[in-house]
């Protein structure tokens, strides 16, 4: 049962244009969401996060939007650069009531930014 879904396995965008990566989740208890970027032969690196009390969070070229009613989040990259080419994972967490957070990851979207 995939609680976090990224329905687009791949996305191709021209350099300078906007990249929009989408993610859907099924568990309404999730209250913290993150995006990670992964290059080949490297571990994922944290990109940006958003808590459920917000609907938007921005960090430079990266903006994450959260639509709780639709259980949907998206990552916008503007402008896209060739160095952004990577696999992007969204992840979600719910307050565990304990000392740690357990992240549930999506299946990933491969972004290719064409020069």
């Amino acid at each position: 049962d995939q609680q976090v879904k990224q329905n687009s396995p791949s996305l191709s965008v021209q350099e300078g244009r906007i990249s929009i990566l989408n993610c859907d989740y099924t568990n309404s208890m999730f209250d913290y969401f993150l995006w990670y970027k992964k290059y080949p032969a490297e571990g994922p690196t944290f990109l940006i996060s958003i808590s459920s009390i917000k609907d938007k969070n921005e960090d430079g070229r990266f903006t994450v939007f959260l639509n709780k009613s639709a259980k949907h989040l998206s990552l916008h990259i503007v402008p896209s650069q060739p160095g952004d080419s990577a696999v992007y994972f969204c992840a979600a967490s719910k307050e565990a009531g304990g000392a740690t957070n357990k992240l549930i990851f999506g299946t990933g979207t491969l972004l290719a930014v064409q020069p």
Partner: protein
Amino acid sequence: DVKVTQSSRYLVKRTGEKVFLECVQDMDHENMFWYRQDPGLGLRLIYFSYDVKMKEKGDIPEGYSVSREKKERFSLILESASTNQTSMYLCASSSGQFKPLHFGNGTRLTVT
């Protein structure tokens, strides 16, 4: 900068062998995690630990165990390796709840 180091980048083991994957972090993080990454399945949590000698099962713990004797080190153990455990294994650490995970570069394990 946080560094999470996995001892091997590539491992090839035979079916039935006992396999140890080692992970060390240098930022005094309380929480450590083991994930596996498979095509089309994303990252799936195997085990995690929020303190020394403490461990909890993730979503796919079957066939695995873990050890955390020191805060900086978290080991994943495959008691009897099987071919369906061929995968990319990723270790991560974090400083607390709702803090981002910092990942190592992964260990590509092939079981033949």
